[in-house]
């Protein structure tokens, strides 16, 4: 990206045009995923003398140059605080940041950018709702329903709320394939239920949950539903209005964007009746020592200087993902998962964890008599990066009676060579352990 100085304020239109050009450049034909891999500089390095094989995209994805350059560009040429200055740079930064909000809105098909709250990530999205909505509307004896496959970040905020309020946490059980038992869910719903919080796709099992149906059932009791989309938006199209989700949250860094930025979508009528989450600058409209009135949505929930470069970077990450096309990404990753199943399930001594019928591109496994931590170390020496441990889902570890798992997860830049390398490295593990 050449350095460029702006003689006049770069308009939103111009920014949009640029991103459309980028989009159409990629879109001209079916995406060539080997070319796409070229866009991710981190992948092109050797680790311990071997070409890196990165199979940990569920933890975080790498970032394409298109995103890295925009962040670089922001800090070089646009850096300024937003919503606070009449000067040129401040206006420019504000426009870029607010334009990113519009991109997010379109990406998940929200009705209005007022429904898009920027947060640090999924974890903060859940905490915001548990604190703000929970403190105001959930009381002693009320019930909150989650599932057995939640990430700790969609368990602990609700537990804390339960402790504060004397509310009760209920858990939807799963079957041995790692799918929700929907009949049990329906039995858990009742007049006392005040919130349902469910992961869209499990980071450990890959299971894609029937969130539309879950939401429909909850709405019969007028119960709002929060969807943890941390492992969803990067893999398939999400339409919050088609789902009729009340809250939907995800992280930028798993969507090929920067860390430290994420999104909480909330229906306007819910966000409006919720009290602020944190107090500070930007979230107020009038402050005196007697009384403060709060800013309008979404700023009511955005106290303090936000991660401006992060928001802008996320906007460009969304452009990038849309440019490749979520349909194409979904197909590509489904083919990878298929290939992984064929290649890995035949290995004697390997047991997959999570075999749902509807499954995103996550392959968790254990090896007979070999602890996942040892697997991780040996794979690492082979240049293969996987995640090992409880994956922030300790209740799932107990459900499947394993101390930990090893997980390979795929992004749009992975290919079958990566899976071949994984298979070979797994054979190496068996060799070391004799």
């Amino acid at each position, binding site marked *: 990206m050449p350095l460029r100085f702006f003689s006049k304020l770069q308009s939103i239109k111009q920014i949009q045009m640029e991103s459309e050009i980028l989009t159409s450049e990629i879109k001209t034909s079916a995406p060539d995923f080997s070319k796409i891999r070229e866009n991710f500089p981190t992948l092109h390095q050797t680790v311990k003398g071997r070409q890196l094989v990165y199979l940990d995209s569920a933890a975080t994805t790498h970032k394409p140059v298109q995103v890295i350059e925009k962040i670089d560009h922001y800090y070089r040429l646009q850096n300024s605080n937003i919503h606070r200055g009449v000067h040129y740079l401040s206006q420019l930064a504000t426009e870029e940041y607010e334009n990113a909000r519009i991109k997010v809105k379109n990406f998940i098909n929200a009705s209005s950018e007022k429904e898009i709250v920027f947060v640090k990530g999924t974890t903060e999205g859940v905490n915001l709702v548990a604190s703000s909505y929970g403190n105001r509307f959930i009381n002693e004896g009320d019930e909150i329903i989650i599932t057995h496959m939640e990430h700790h970040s969609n368990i602990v905020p609700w537990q804390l709320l339960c402790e504060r309020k004397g509310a009760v946490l209920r858990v939807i059980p799963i079957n041995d394939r790692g799918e929700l038992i929907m009949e049990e869910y329906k039995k858990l719903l009742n007049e006392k239920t005040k919130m349902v919080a469910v992961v869209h796709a499990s980071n450990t099992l890959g299971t894609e949950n029937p969130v539309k149906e879950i939401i429909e059932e909850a709405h019969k009791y007028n119960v709002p539903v929060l969807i943890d989309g941390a492992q969803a938006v990067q893999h398939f199209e999400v339409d919050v209005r088609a789902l009729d989700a009340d809250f939907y949250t995800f992280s930028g860094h798993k969507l090929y964007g920067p860390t430290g930025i994420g999104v909480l979508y909330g229906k306007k009528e819910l966000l409006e009746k919720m009290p602020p989450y944190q107090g500070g600058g930007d979230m107020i409209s009038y402050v005196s020592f007697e009384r403060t009135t709060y800013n309008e949505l979404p700023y009511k929930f955005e106290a303090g200087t936000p991660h401006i470069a992060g928001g802008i970077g996320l906007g460009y990450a969304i452009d990038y993902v849309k440019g490749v096309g979520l349909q194409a990404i979904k197909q590509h990753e489904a083919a990878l998962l298929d290939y992984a199943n064929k290649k890995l399930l035949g290995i004697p001594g390997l047991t997959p964890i999570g075999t749902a019928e509807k499954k995103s591109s996550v392959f968790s496994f254990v090896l007979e008599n070999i602890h996942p931590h040892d697997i991780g*170390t*040996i794979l690492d020496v082979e240049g293969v990066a996987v995640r090992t441990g409880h994956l922030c889902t300790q209740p799932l*570890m107990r459900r499947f009676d394993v101390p*930990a798992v090893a997980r390979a997860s795929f992004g749009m830049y992975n290919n079958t060579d990566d899976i071949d390398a994984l298979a070979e490295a797994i054979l190496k593990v068996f060799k070391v352990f004799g």
Partner: protein
Amino acid sequence: MNSELNELYQQVILDHNKNPRNFRKIEEPTHHSEGLNPLCGDHLHIYLIIENERVADIAFQGNGCAISKSSASIMTEVLKGKPVKEAEEKFKEFHDLITGHITDEDQIEAMGKLAVFKGISEFPVRVKCASLAWHTMNAAVHQKDTVSTE
């Protein structure tokens, strides 16, 4: 095969992983502690009977990777019958070994069975695995119920 891996997963370590020694519960220990490494899910109990300032018996139970399990196993062998004071000295020496602070070959050799863990220093993320049993033993001796290496 990669030489670092060979150093890490020596036959002795693999053998103790498969057939851990003193792998049992002591019903009435004088000292006991539970060790946790939440990052990888390692979880073990160390039981001791300390009589006259000596480790009269020591055993462990639990679940963990090959490194933590073999380390616990070898530790129990090394410490049985030793004065408590020596156990603490050995802990320090062991820690220095796995963090790469002891490099002198003769000194490493003099550590006997514990020397097989010298390869850990090439794998900093595994130091916690190797030291979990020792931390837990140390906590038990000092009458702490649980330790976490996080």
